[in-house]
């Protein structure tokens, strides 16, 4: 942007480069710049002695200060664990039903529970806890519970699991394979009856004969009105929610072959604080009782 060539030729001379009549002056660098450069080199040398720096065959030189990013992360994790220790102790000591009334504790448990859920539970119940429809992985968001939806029941289910062989206190029940007990016609009548008590379209004649079959074979677990029994994990057959589907094919299959799921007991794998956190989280998903 020079307005006109300098009045006197610059003492510094030029580099000899020229573009469109613009010459490049050969100005010297300021000396302080040189000293700054040397200072940076000195800093780098000191740094490489104090901190991990020079690559060796198996690892870098550790540095005199013993700093490592792994160590820093470990210390940070430990700091969080220490900071959370009191509230985790409080969580384990609290009465399960009272956690919801303690906002701080409830918030902590819900957040921890969400992350534990995503790690351990999402494989079957889905990351959104909606289960897998028609495949027998229960939806945890709705208001229908096989083994009870209050916080204590949920806690028991998570702790001991269902129908597993690893825990001694696992919840247990098994539906018989009615295909070995009843004829195909009888099962068809039973299917129509179950559809009738759940308010779905059905063949009234078949359903009427199914009623007697139901009374003889099913009421022990599902109850006279078909409302289920949570002590036995027997589903309510009158509502809109079906673990394996409520259409004729699915019901026929379920009654003929019997279907049930298995859940691990989490007590040996998760700490009590984590189990309680998941219980609080699941209870707060919208269906908790």
């Amino acid at each position, binding site marked *: *942007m*020079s*307005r*006109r*060539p*300098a*009045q*006197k030729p610059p003492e*510094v*001379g*030029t*580099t*000899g480069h*020229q573009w469109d009549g613009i*010459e490049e002056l*050969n*100005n*010297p*660098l*300021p*000396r*302080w*710049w*040189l000293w700054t450069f040397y200072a940076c080199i000195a800093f780098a040398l000191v740094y490489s002695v104090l901190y991990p720096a020079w690559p060796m065959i198996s690892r870098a030189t550790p540095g005199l200060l013993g700093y490592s990013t792994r160590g820093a992360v470990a210390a940070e994790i430990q700091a969080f664990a220490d900071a959370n220790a009191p509230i985790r102790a409080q969580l384990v000591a609290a009465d399960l039903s009272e956690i*919801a009334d303690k906002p701080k504790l*409830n918030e902590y448990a819900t957040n921890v529970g969400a992350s534990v859920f995503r790690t351990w539970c999402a494989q079957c119940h*889905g*990351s*959104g806890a*909606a289960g897998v429809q028609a495949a027998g992985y229960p*939806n945890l*968001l*709705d*208001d*229908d519970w096989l083994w009870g939806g209050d916080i204590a029941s949920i806690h028991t289910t998570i702790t001991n699991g269902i129908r597993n062989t690893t825990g001694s206190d696992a919840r247990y029940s098994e539906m018989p394979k009615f295909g070995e007990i009843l004829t195909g016609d009888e099962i068809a009548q039973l299917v129509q009856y179950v559809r009738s008590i759940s308010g779905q379209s059905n063949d009234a004649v078949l359903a009427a004969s199914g009623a007697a079959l139901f009374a003889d074979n099913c009421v022990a677990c599902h109850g006279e009105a078909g409302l289920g029994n949570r002590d036995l994990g027997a589903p*309510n057959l009158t*509502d*809109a*929610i079906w673990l394996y589907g409520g259409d004729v094919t699915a019901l026929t299959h379920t009654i003929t072959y019997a279907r049930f799921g298995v859940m691990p007991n989490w007590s040996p794998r998760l700490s009590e604080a984590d189990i309680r956190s998941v219980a609080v989280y699941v209870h*707060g998903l*919208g269906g908790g009782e």
Partner: protein
Amino acid sequence: MSSPDTHPPSLYAAREPIFPRRVKGWFRTLKWWIMGLTLGIYYITPWLRWDRGPNLPDQAVLIDLGGRRFFFFMIEIWPHEFYFVAGLLIMAGLGLFLFTSALGRVWCGYACPQTVWTDLFILVERWVEGDRNARLRLHRQSWNWAKARKRALKWTAWLLIAVATGGAWVFYVADAPGLLRDLVTLQAHPAAWLTIAGLTATTFVFGGFMREQICIYACPWPRIQAAMMDEDTITVAYREWRGEPRGNASVTDSGDCIDCMACVNVCPTGIDIRDGQQLACITCALCIDACDDTMAKIGKPRGLIDYLALTDEVLERSGSPQRAIWKHILRPRTILYTALWSAVGVGLVLALFLQSDIGLHVTPLRNPILVTLSDGSIRNTYDLRLLNKHGEPRTFRISLTSDQPLELSLEGHVSQTVTVPGNATTTQRVYVVAPSGSEAAGKDRTDLRLWVEDLGNNDRIHADTIFNGKGD
């Protein structure tokens, strides 16, 4: 072009010390006023108080790093409103473009902290050691008691200014009176001490010793500015066609320049503006004042060195007068910059007016989209983030409006009210249920509006969202 050198030139050069002479004049006076104003704003602002009611800080300008809030008089900005800061930065950028394309390096010459503090340091230097000639003599003379005393006095004064500068900075990020008490009683946070120490060091070194070196070698702005100037940009220039050949006023055929060197002696970057426009010139206009003074003494019109545009040179060489300043300034480029600048500004002001002291952000939960309940009704779930910008806790009632019979309930609450603590946010999960067999339960999408109402003063805001039914 390179001349065959007999001895290679040194690659490095020591800084040439510069001893700017005192100057009086219109631009110097303007610069004193700007210095007083900018330094005054900088040092005083953290001490201004502003009442925001209970539980909120009463500091007018406060960057609350811990609480992640920015307070500016009646304005309070939360982290999610960072677009205000981004907008201000954009305005600052556009403003600089505007001023540079219109008036060259006017920022450098008048308002840049490097210039303002260097000016202040030179002022102190002049008080202690005298004007240019006295300082030159002191510089050349060998060390003795008088020199040591003057240097010590000057450096002490600089250091005090530097400490005050670094000290003022930290008051912007903490309650100023409280922090001052902590500093005096030596109980302040180490970060405060480190910040003060760092800024004291940079102020002392940059203002006292580096000065023009920062402008010439360290600052990126001069490089950027060169690209923003054009032939209509008004900048400080020497009327060579009037001044040359320079020499003696008594010689009749010489120009107006008497080679008194006043312009060079007052220049804070130590250059000769008569060599033409150059990188080191920060357009501080002090050489204009100096030359005007000389012209007055020899009875010639002022303005041998003056604010000029490149196009003026062509005009004046052909004998026509300089173009009017406003004609240089008003051109498509500056008008565009002004328009953009104002558009961002108007947008920010509008956003400020629309800012509410309740905040509502609705996140519909989409995993899963809907849940079928045991009675066949359909439920959707939403996470509501509620902001309470008041200092005291507020109770909000959450409700919905829709042309469908949708029902709303809150997770963990029997009632439809939720209390948000003062100056905080709360996330509340909300369920909306469409009865079994209803239109909304079957339809794909139903519009709904969620309302949040402050039960105390009936302020309310809303957000629109969608209810998803089974869609069959």
